[in-house]
Structure formats: C-alpha cells, structure tokens
C-alpha cells in the first residue's frame, strides 16, 4: 500500500508542479519538501495538491478521504511537510477508515 500511495502523491505533486514557478524537487522522493518553512507550495497550490490526491485515492481505493481533517490541521509536524510525511499520513487515514 505504501508504494501505491507514494505513487499517487508523486503524480499529484508533478501535476501541481505545473502551476509552480519554483517547482518542488520531486526527484528527492520522500524527502521532497512540500508545504511549510522549507516548502515549495503556497496555499493555493496546496489546495490543488490536496484535491488531486483525494481524487486519485478515491478512484483507486474507492474510499473518500478528507486530508485536511482536524488531526492534520492541528498536528505539530504538518503532514503536508514532505512527500514522505504526506504518504505516511494518508496510510494512517486509510487504516482508520478500514477499521471504522
């Protein structure tokens, strides 16, 4: 599952990069910074990224996820910091959904 989600996040970052002058260095893989102090995304491109990831997850796993949930918005370390943190966060959400 990790690899599948990572692929989705990577695809979505590539798609979002088309909107950006300063592109997120997706070749860094899971270390690629996204949002926050060293990030490449502004709030508008973060919205596009979230929309794109949610859409792809829903298509592939048939699970509607809301990435910007209370937990995500209140965590000390934002799940949107890097490709890796976002992938791990989505895995957690998917696990919660499958146990619910």
């Amino acid at each position: 599952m990790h690899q599948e989600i990572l692929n989705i996040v990577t695809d979505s970052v590539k798609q979002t990069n088309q909107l950006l002058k300063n592109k997120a260095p997706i070749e860094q893989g899971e270390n690629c910074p996204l949002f926050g102090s060293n990030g490449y995304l502004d709030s508008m491109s973060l919205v596009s990224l979230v929309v794109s990831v949610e859409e792809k997850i829903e298509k592939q796993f048939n699970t509607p996820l809301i990435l910007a949930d209370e937990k995500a918005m209140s965590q000390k370390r934002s799940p949107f910091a890097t490709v890796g943190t976002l992938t791990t966060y989505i895995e957690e959400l998917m696990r919660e959904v499958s146990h619910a």
Partner: protein
Amino acid sequence: MHKPVTLITGTRKGIGKYLAEHYVNKGHIVVGCSRSPIDWKLNHYTHFETDVADENSVRQLFQMIRKNFGRLDNLINNAGIASMNHMALTPLSTVNNILNTNVIGTFLFCREATKLMISKNQGRIVNFTTVATPLKLEGEAIYAASKAAVGSLTEVLARELAPYNITVNAVGPTPIETDLIKSVPKEKMQRLIARQAISRFGTCEDVANVIDFFLNPKSDFITGQNIYLGGV
C-alpha cells in the same frame, strides 16, 4: 458540448423543486437532495436523501457525482429552514437546527463542490440569503443571522475561489408563498412586503431569473454579489 451538471439542495418542495424542474428543462443533468423522500419524478434528475449538515452523507453524495458524472458545473445551495419565534422563546435546539442547515450545510456543499470544480478549473456556486436580514425582521433573529453568515461566506469564498475560475454569489428572496413562511401571520407578511421597493410576493421564477444570470457563462466577472429581490 456536454450537458451541465447542476446540484441543487432542498429539492423536495418549494423553490428547490421548482429549480430542479427549471434546470432539467434547460437541459441540465440535475442532482438534488432533501432529508425526506420525494413524491415526484423527473427525467435527468437524481435524488438523494441527504441531510445537508451530515458530513458523511454529503461526502457520499459527492462521491456518487464524481463517479457517475465526473464533474460538477453548478451548485445551488437552496436548502434552508426558518423558525418564527421571539428570541426569548427560542429553544437552543431550534438555534442549532437553523445554523446546521443554513450555515454548516451551505459550507459543506461549497467545500466538497469546490474540490470537484477546482479539477476542471471552473464552476458556479449560488447561495441563498433573505431580505429578513437587511429588513431586520423581528421574530427571525437566528434565521436572519444564519443568512447573514451565508452572505459573509459568499463574499469570502468568492475571493478564495476566484483563482480557480469559480464564482460565488447569492440571491436573497423576498417572501414567496412556500411552506417556509406558512406560519408567519398574514398581517406581518403584508407589513414586510410593504417595506420592499416593489410591494408584492416574490415567485420562484423571480429567483430562477437571478440564478440564470449567475450561472450564465458570460457572468464570469460577477462574483461575491448578493442580489435581493423586490428592491430591498
């Protein structure tokens, strides 16, 4: 050209039902919802029994739209409730119900619709306000306040969504003879109508006319506006 997909909340009766028929007649694919089942049928119309304030059911509804239609062109946030009561006699449960349907419901539909619209980089959202707010209608404190919140939401969302070519506007009807105002005493209604620039009841056609304008592709420079009927 594809048929526009139009989502209308609160379509079981009243203005919402009229709008569902109106947009089907204009060639739209219409999706609607209400808490209770409908007793009518329409081609090119799909109904959901969804409470607009229930986040999970709202997400399911949008999941279905994404799956079946792959897009959403227009959202009309018509579902709304009112309650005529002096504030000193208004139970908290009434306050919660009104805020949940009118404010939270409108917000949830805007949020989920936005996600579908952003991926196509276009969209139209129309919210419902009321003349009860500017006319400061006694007995409708929470209703008027809830619609003031909708007005404010409309203005801020217009700015947040402009970069994605999504417009957000509102229509504010005068009294229209639906169940919503059934319990308001006649002479109170007459006094209210007398305060309009044009003193008559509104009609569903009047509302549809304003929404037609907002949905028109040529209205892509019109956003963050609230149009009151009757010259209020």
